[in-house]
């Protein structure tokens, strides 16, 4: 299977997964006894945050691998994952704000989990901005690999912030305390968003690889 076919298969699987997530979250899962329908936001908020974190794990691993091997494909992979991660973490933060307003009474508060998440988004927006600051592909890849490694330190801080500090945001739920249909809906979302991330990264990687080859052709024939 070539890369283009694999991307199409991933896109179809992610599409089916996302439609299933919407159905599971809006129809299949029962209404929460305390929060009512607004709790259904969990079935998209948690998977969006999970897939954003996973994207930054890919940036971290690809950045380390790039510094060791100096293979530009690893830099393209880190770039693709960083961009998808920014979209997904940005979505998770926006969904959290929409959930926060009816439950906490505010769209935003400088709570440890929310603040650490905002810092995470800012770090990777900085990573993407940094890519436009030099025309030398090797230097760009080296600088971004350093940011991709150091910036990742905030990911465990975001995850553990609800355990380390007193926060409005709830700590992670245990599968033992969640009703089975709710758990099924949540897992559907997690799998769908993981496939979606793979699809986004695959598409963005193809574009980055073609753009790099085009840049090389134009520079070498200028």
């Amino acid at each position, binding site marked *: 299977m070539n890369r283009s076919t694999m991307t199409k298969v991933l896109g179809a699987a992610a599409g089916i997964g996302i439609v299933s997530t919407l159905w599971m979250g809006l129809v299949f899962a029962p209404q929460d006894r305390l929060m*009512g329908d607004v709790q*259904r936001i969990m079935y998209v908020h948690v998977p969006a945050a999970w897939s954003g974190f996973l994207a930054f794990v890919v940036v971290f691993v690809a950045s380390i691998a790039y510094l060791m091997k100096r293979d530009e494909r690893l830099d393209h992979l880190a770039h693709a994952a960083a961009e998808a991660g920014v979209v997904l973490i940005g979505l998770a933060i926006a969904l959290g704000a929409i959930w926060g307003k009816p439950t906490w009474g505010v769209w935003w508060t400088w709570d440890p989990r929310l603040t650490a998440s905002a810092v995470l988004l800012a770090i990777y927006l900085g990573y993407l901005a940094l890519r436009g600051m030099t025309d030398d592909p090797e230097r760009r890849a080296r600088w971004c690999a350093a940011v991709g490694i150091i910036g990742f330190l905030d990911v465990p801080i975001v995850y553990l912030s609800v355990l380390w500090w007193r926060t409005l945001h709830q700590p992670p739920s245990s599968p033992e305390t969640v009703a089975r249909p709710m758990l099924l809906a949540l897992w559907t979302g997690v799998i769908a968003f993981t496939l979606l991330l793979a699809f986004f990264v695959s598409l963005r990687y193809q*574009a980055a690889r*073609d753009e790099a080859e085009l840049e090389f*052709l134009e520079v070498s024939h200028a």
Partner: protein
Amino acid sequence: MPDARGFMVAAYVLTTLTIAVYGMRLAARARAAHRRLNAARTLYGGTHE
């Protein structure tokens, strides 16, 4: 509590729109990059993919 169902609908609409818009933007960018690369290969005497 305000109309909680409205917040839920807003969240699902935002999710769907974000995925659709970013997905279509990525697909268009990948197609354009591939097209420009093939044109450059033709111009500079490379091979098509």
